[in-house]
């Protein structure tokens, strides 16, 4: 359910499998992530996951209080930047090594639970 899932379509798993392709694509990916500009307003990539869905809301509820607070701070900071039509001073930009997928594991576990529930709901019992 990659297409309809909360994380959207992704070629990353396929690329990660191929070592040569990964080595070739990774610099471009890094360049693209920097270029897309979200790091300049202090965001991490996982702040951009669409949160107006039940599964992502559940995942957000599973963050530790500290992670939830930091996320809220980044959202506030970025919307302030948006009001000012400006980006943060360079030392406040998100560094590449800080840009970790803190929400993705939770989103995936919620998605997994949903898929499992669907599988159990549609199960056909057969006699052994």
């Amino acid at each position, binding site marked *: 359910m990659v297409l309809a899932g909360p994380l959207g379509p992704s070629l990353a798993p396929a690329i990660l499998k191929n070592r040569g392709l990964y080595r070739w694509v990774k610099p471009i990916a890094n360049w693209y992530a920097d270029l897309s500009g979200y790091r300049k307003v202090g965001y991490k990539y996982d702040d951009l996951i669409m949160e107006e869905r039940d599964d992502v809301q559940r995942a957000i*509820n599973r963050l530790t209080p500290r992670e939830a607070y930091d996320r809220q701070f980044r959202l506030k900071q970025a919307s302030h930047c948006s009001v000012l039509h400006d980006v943060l001073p360079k030392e406040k930009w998100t560094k590449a090594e800080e840009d970790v997928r803190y929400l993705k594991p939770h989103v995936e*576990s919620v998605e997994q639970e949903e898929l499992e529930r669907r599988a159990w709901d549609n199960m056909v019992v057969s006699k052994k």
Partner: protein
Amino acid sequence: MLASRSSAARSASRIARNFATVVDTAGVKVAAVDNGEPTSAVTFLVKAGSRFESKPGVAHALKGFAFKSTEKRSFLGTIREAELYGGVLSTSLTREHLALTAEFLRGDEPLFVDILSSFVKSAKYTRHELDEYVAPVCEAESTTAFSNPAVRALDLAHLLAFRTGLGSSPFTTPGTHVSVEDVKAYAQNAFTPGNLAVLGTGIDAATLQKLVEQSLGSLSGASTLSSSPSSYFGGETRIEAHGAPETIFIGFGTAGAPSAELAVLSAHLDPTPTIKWSKGLSPIAANLPAGVSVKSVLLPYSDAALYGIVIQGADTERVKEAGKVAVAALKAAGDLKGDDLKKAVAKAKFDAASALDGRDNVLFALGAQALGSPASLDSTISNLDKVTATAYHKAASSFLKAKPTYVAIGDIKRLPYADELGL
């Protein structure tokens, strides 16, 4: 024909019950009784009741985590699989033991023993399960339990009587915070081979031993859970409450294994009538004002016992009157002679025997045997037979001389104080 057959069945079951020997399998004590029931039940009895908890509410949270996700199955998978096989999973927590029970049709034991043992061995204790499922359920259970003034009175009575250890409640008090790490550490200490007994009814002992050996063979470690030996203190407390019956609890406790004399005292005072719509012959029941309910409670533990009378009624005056009757009966109960004593002993014997009727009770009796309490039915009954008037008088009067435990819940401005009842 029918009569002879049923009596043969009864004696057969008695033989089976007597031969429920406790076997050490992979360090875990296993006992099983097969009385030919159509369903089987397996209980994992863990010495992890609230008296052992390191932090208030941990034992209750551990109980809540039962059957949640493990390395083998998810939370949903456990429930759906159990439903598919038509089994019932349940847990219960007392001050001394945590019991995880699965009841199922005969033949499904591999799955259900696996469900139980995978919780013991490899539960995940995730933070989101604590927040999403365990904590709300614990809170709801505690709120429901404490909204019953009798439960609340007994809970407070334990605290007054034993303070630490047995005093700690099997329910979470509102406002306590338990983290996943606390539960994990507690579980690691609790789920060790020496701390665990596997009990089966309606299941062949050899089958159960084999399954336990397969599933719990790798379980290791020694429990560091400990509880200080109980001692009895006693005291008085009053709690304001509204919208529930006015409740008082008058009780006495004692440290040391519960004695036969105490069971006789309890049987003598128990106001429950033996015949429906009658008043009963207990000295309390005879002079009771109308509209007041009186229950006697005997709570035996491995190293202490609490006996008390719970009086509930809508009207404080009548509750006070009933309290005076109960205290007078308690004081007079030290002298019990002749037929009165015989009657009480007979009633206590019947209570002890009929307590083994239900499946849960058989499991708990087996568990007590497996985890080292010496209370088998035969010994209980022979001890009751040995009760003499002088021994009873000595035991009962020293028991009733201790400082009473008194709890009043309700309209505390009107409910009587302990000294007003003559305690």
